[in-house]
């Protein structure tokens, strides 16, 4: 009988024990799966928010503009961005302005865009809840919370002033993107109007560039190699604000914690294996006297530990992935996220958070099996390695 079958049979012999132990393993597996799913979901929501709403997957601008985002450092002409990864590009013109409704006055950033070009790059044009997206100059689209603050409605006029000029715009639409920055501070107008307001010869302040998902950083690097010296491309992760630190910090904090959880679960597995081995020392002694080497016996112990934890792992994966599937399609964290957006409207948070669902989590969780096997070699395995065969065979 192969070692594996033998080990498996031993595991099955103690059903209750294995079942109880599996509770631990299931719990930890689900926790690991869920945590990674949550963290990745958080990261994805940030990337989605910044790449498709607040900024763009890659942004190209003058190095001077990154330091001092003023139209003074805008682009007079557009660089050539031919590269297999560039899927779309659209110029944008951002400048600080005063927003004046008949009732309120507020400072903000006026973003001049190419209405059609934006549709290929950004999700904002598809999130208009009242009215419509921009079609031409003289129009403006606002985040719905900003419109509330300014007390201005669709069809009414908003005056936008910079130090160089003032223009009245008709509010043609309100957006509700579910992303704080857009809803609370978004002002979108036509590129032509932005140029007029700035009163300078620049064509745009930066270029939004669309690249395949997941390739933002490498695309930015690739573009930097072909762009002239004074221009710099940045990928979405570099465009995020301080919220990135929260994401990275969370990973740094919680991943080791999950590691600890796994070690503790492994300890429980090994503990059970230990008892099981102790109970069957005589069997092992007999096996050894029949010719099986201690090393192979220790190996069997490790295998048993692996299988024991494996049972729990499989159950945990099923349960964990089911949970992740649910939370990846239902906005369970909605209320919490909405509160966060209210607290930090300019952080780039979204109103929804869906967990990620990736096969690689199974790999992370299965480390538990590996650790269990390893610990089993070290502790119960040792019992078997140092077995005094004669003592047991004699029937003590």
């Amino acid at each position, binding site marked *: 009988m192969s070692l594996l079958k033998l080990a498996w049979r031993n595991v099955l012999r103690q059903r209750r024990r294995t079942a109880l132990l599996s509770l631990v393993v299931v719990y930890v597996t689900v926790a690991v799966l869920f945590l990674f799913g949550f963290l990745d979901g958080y990261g994805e929501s940030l990337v989605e928010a910044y790449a498709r709403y607040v900024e763009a997957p890659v942004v190209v601008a003058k190095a001077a503009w990154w330091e001092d985002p003023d139209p003074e450092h805008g682009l007079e002409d557009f660089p050539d961005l031919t590269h297999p990864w560039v899927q779309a590009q659209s110029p944008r013109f951002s400048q600080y302005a*005063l927003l*004046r*409704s*008949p009732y309120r006055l507020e400072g903000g950033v006026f973003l001049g865009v190419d209405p059609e070009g934006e549709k290929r790059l950004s999700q904002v044009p598809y999130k208009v809840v009242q009215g419509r997206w921009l079609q031409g*100059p*003289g129009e403006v689209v606002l985040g719905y919370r900003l419109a509330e603050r300014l007390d201005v409605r669709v*069809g*009414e*006029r908003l*005056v*936008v*002033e910079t*130090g160089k*000029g*003032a*223009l*009245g*715009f*008709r509010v043609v639409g309100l957006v509700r993107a579910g992303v704080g920055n857009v809803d609370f501070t978004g002002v979108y107008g036509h590129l032509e*109007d932005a140029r007029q307001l700035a009163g300078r010869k620049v064509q745009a302040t930066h270029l939004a560039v669309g690249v395949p998902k997941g390739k933002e950083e490498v695309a930015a690097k690739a573009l930097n190699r072909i762009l002239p010296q004074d221009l710099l491309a940045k990928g979405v992760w570099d465009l995020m604000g301080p919220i990135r630190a929260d994401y990275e910090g969370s990973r740094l904090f919680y991943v080791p914690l999950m590691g600890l959880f796994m070690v503790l679960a492994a300890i429980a597995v090994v503990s059970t294996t230990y008892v099981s081995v102790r109970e069957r020392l005589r069997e092992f002694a007999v096996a050894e006297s029949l010719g099986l080497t201690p090393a192979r016996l220790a190996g069997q112990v490790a295998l048993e530990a692996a299988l024991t934890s494996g049972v729990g792992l499989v159950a945990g994966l099923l349960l964990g992935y089911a949970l992740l599937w649910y939370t990846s399609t239902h906005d369970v964290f909605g209320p919490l996220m909405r509160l966060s957006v209210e607290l930090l409207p300019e952080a780039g948070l979204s109103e929804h958070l869906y967990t990620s669902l990736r096969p690689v989590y199974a790999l992370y969780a299965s480390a538990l099996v590996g650790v269990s096997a390893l610990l089993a070699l070290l502790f119960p395995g040792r019992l078997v390695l140092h077995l005094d065969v004669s003592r047991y065979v004699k029937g003590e």
Partner: protein
Amino acid sequence: MKRMAFPLLILTALAVAQGPLEKLKLALDHLRGPAHQGVYLLQVERPGSVRTYRLKVYADGDRAHLRVLEPKSEAGQAFLSLGEDLYFYDPRLGRTLRLPPTGRGERFLGSDLTYQDLLGRDLEELFQVGEVQGVLVLTPKPTAPTPYGRVEVYLKDSLIERILYYDQRNQAVRELKLSAYHRLDGAYLPREMELRDLQRPGYRTLLRIAEVQAGPVPERCFNPLYLERGC
């Protein structure tokens, strides 16, 4: 901009033949009056308080220089409007500043009158003029930077009697009444201007001409460098 001096009868006759825009232009010319200097009294009424300023004014129809004479605590402040540009000087500030374009919509000395009301020709520049039963109805031009939805100008013999400002929700928010037009050097000047904030009861501003003297104004009065010391 040309200012024509017509006797009242010919004026009225011409008014019948003019289009709305011409009527408005003419009426605004009459509002600003000829080149003159004088003393104006600005009375700012609020519920429970009244503030009165005494101003020295130099104007030539397009440009205007105003200085605060009284009360003593605010004396020395001076304002200069040169069409597009608006400058002001304050002795406490110690220097002359140019106000950004946003400044024109702001209240003059905290009253209900804006710089625009006193000095500008926004009505002509930012609005399209139509006429409905003798009343000039102004609607904003497409990209005009104005908060109003509609302005109604009531004329009496080509002189503006009343201007009613509506917000974009069809509510009247300000009412400007002009009266006691004074014939001066071939042109007209309203001696009394009353502005009521229709949204806040008890808020009212009165501007009355105390003394006036027609005649050319020295060019240096319209130079920002002279805001500090006056002319």
